[in-house]
């Protein structure tokens, strides 16, 4: 069995890391080639620097971690919020069609002000602010005495059975009678 050399293994791992970042960007509709190259180079450079210090770490892990770190801090700035910035940021970019309107903006240091305004104007809440109030049922009440109610319950529940029994017994009574 021929074992792959460490160099080839490493190249394969970096190729996988590169492909992973590329697909991730494409999934976010960030398909502009120039933008992709810039971000890939930024992410992979930072990952390579970390890899030099920790050779046991997988390039895929390092690259994706760098991408997450960069995007989280970029989205925090864009949204001016620390509340799940990455998720909300991605949704905001999709909502305002950022990939089409600001094709090179993602992960740039200078966020275009028009993009920032557009994102902050967009109300992406699934539901508005709560305005809580009460809706409490009144207990079921009836003018009938409780005992009568219980009797009714007992009587109504097997109503069908009783009707069947009544009709069948009446029918048997009738069948014993000679026809006129």
């Amino acid at each position: 069995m021929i074992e792959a050399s460490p160099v080839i293994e490493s190249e394969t791992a970096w190729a996988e890391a590169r492909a992973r970042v590329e697909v991730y960007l494409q999934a976010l509709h960030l398909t502009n080639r120039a933008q992709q190259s810039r971000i890939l180079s930024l992410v992979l450079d930072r990952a390579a620097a970390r890899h030099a210090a920790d050779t046991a770490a997988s390039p895929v892990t390092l690259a994706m971690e760098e991408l997450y770190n960069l995007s989280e801090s970029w989205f925090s700035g864009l949204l001016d919020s620390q509340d799940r910035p990455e998720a909300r940021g991605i949704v905001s970019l999709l909502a305002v069609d950022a990939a089409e309107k600001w094709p090179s903006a993602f992960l740039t240091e200078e966020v275009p002000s028009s993009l920032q305004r557009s994102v902050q104007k967009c109300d992406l809440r699934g539901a508005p602010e709560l305005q809580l109030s009460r809706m409490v049922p009144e207990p079921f009440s009836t003018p009938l005495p409780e005992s009568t109610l219980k009797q009714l319950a007992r009587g109504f529940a097997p109503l069908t059975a009783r009707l069947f029994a009544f009709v069948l017994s009446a029918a048997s009574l009738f069948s014993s009678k000679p026809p006129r």
Partner: protein
Amino acid sequence: MVSRKPVDESLIADRRGVFFILNAFLWAFGAMLMAARISGHGWTPAAMGLFVLFLLLQAQIVYGFTIAVTGWWMLRRGGDPFRINQTLPADFVPSDLPVTAVIIPIFNEDVGRVFQGVRVMYESLAATGFGSSFDFYILSDSSDLSVWIEEEKAWFELCKQVDGFGHIFYRKRKVTLHHKSGNVADFCRRWGAKYPYLIVLDADSIMRGNLFVRLVALMEKNPIIGMIQTYSRPVLGQSLFQRVNQFASFAYGPLFSAGANFWQLDNASFYGHNAIIRVQPFMKFCAMPELPPSGRLGTRILSHDTVEAALIRRAGYEVWCDYDLEGSYEEGPPHLLASLKRDRRWCHGNMQHFWFLFCRGLTLPSRINILVGIMAYLGSPLWLLFLLFSPVMFIGGQVHARSAPLFICAMVLLFVPKLLAAERLVSNPGMLSLRHARWKFFASTVAEAIYSMLLAPILMLFYTRFVWSSFFGSGVGWGRQKRADSVGPAWSDCFMAHWAHTLLALVAGVLVGWFVPPMLPWFMMVLAGPLVSIPFTRFSASNGLGLAALRKGLFVIPEELQPPSELRAVQEPFGAFAGETLLKPDGYGEDYGLVQTILDPRTNALHISLLRERPKVSLETHERLVALCNLLLYDGPGALPLREKRMLLWDADAMIALHHRLWSSPLSDYHQWWREAFLEYLKRAPLQSA
């Protein structure tokens, strides 16, 4: 509550007096004929039992007949002068409207259809110029995880396409207590205080924009009104079953609605959808109480609508049915078996309403509405008893000539409403403007009457079983409602559903033919339906037959001849999420939603951003979630039951962690299932560049 009543109390009393005196007269007349018939035979215990059954059933038939006749008379006069719609001029355009909530409770529905419907209504409203006066809420109780995720994506896509962010909302309920009524109550508790009115729709409802506006204007004009129910017409049917039903609704619906309005006026019923509700009294008076414990009927009300109408009426608010407003639609179930599934639940709910016959403070008309609802199902076992019982009386005897008046009376009560409907269809100027041959309307009415004769005894047998199981059987669940089915039920399903009916009809036919031969022709009218029930259900589910009837001009409704733009638009497909879906559902089964949420960054981000903030979880819960994440990644989704997958999907931190871990690790780290899913995802990722 200060308001002028739209109609005087004296007029209401007069109308109700006339209506119920007419009922009583016809009922007494039928009872007299029956008594005369029995007298010729002898008042045996069996005869007395038969007479009691007859009185109950006669009341039900007479009620339907009287409603149809008064409705026909009202329409013949050009419409009831006391319609709630008359309180505003026909061309009234409000200068301003308060913001109204439009709520759509959904449960595992066809996601594309629901959101396409919302799009159509939103755009129709925008065209009226009052779009900003309505907020749409899609209130999901979906238990299917994949449906949940599709709903989120569809909500986002819809908001993006129609610029509806901030006006179209999506809320998924974590604890789906008390089904639909609980879903609506949950909305009221959270956001009800923001709105004076809410319009409640079903998943398959469509309402035109100007109808939304009109309903709010009517509520503004009449502060004493608590609810206005519109008459929603079934449309867009393809199968023969749907097309006959929608034709029947078109032909008879106006008669029955106008007739019901004649006596109900300010005390109409509520059907639970396509209606507007005044929120404040609804919240104060219409929360569903627990019922007294009574065995299998249960204590939680399944059918809430009639009860809500009765409760809001008890509080002094009026309930009207605005039957003459156009533009309110719904879709019907595609075939008989799907329809029966819904009936099963309604039957149980209506049996529970029994308690409200004795509820303190309800008005008499509310109690009558409740009783009519109960009898809609309880009438079936009574009919069955009557039919089983009547031939027994004649064993060894003869069928008397005295039966003829009774028979004629029954035929008049049953078929005159159909004749009146046919007369209206062929003579009404509105119908003539549709340029559809009159004879086709008439032929459709005749064909529908034959169809109903076959269907009615089949329904009687099913409803009898439903009533029985409400009291003695297992509980009723809240299943997914089937609203479309291009294939229809298999022959085997039809056989399993109907074999007992066919056998019963065969045996009954042989027994009646053997012991009381003169009664056999009369009985065949009842036995024919169950005898052919298997092919009846199969063929009536056929889209081919439904469309063939349409081509021949049978069972045609105006919406098919001149479809409103909203109905055309709702049939168009709903666009996919942001252009494409990276994973195909095949091969993932019930885990399709989960795998998308974990793998796809957009779906993951959207899902997380829609989850509400949650207080910090306990250490125990945190450890449990971590363990579940590990199990999911290392052993695959098959290792987790649905409940635990749902638990993960509800936790934003878990979903973030799963997404990050999967994307940040070499594929070899996780279960084979994830490796294959991830590879497919990578393979399908779009490689185009701008």
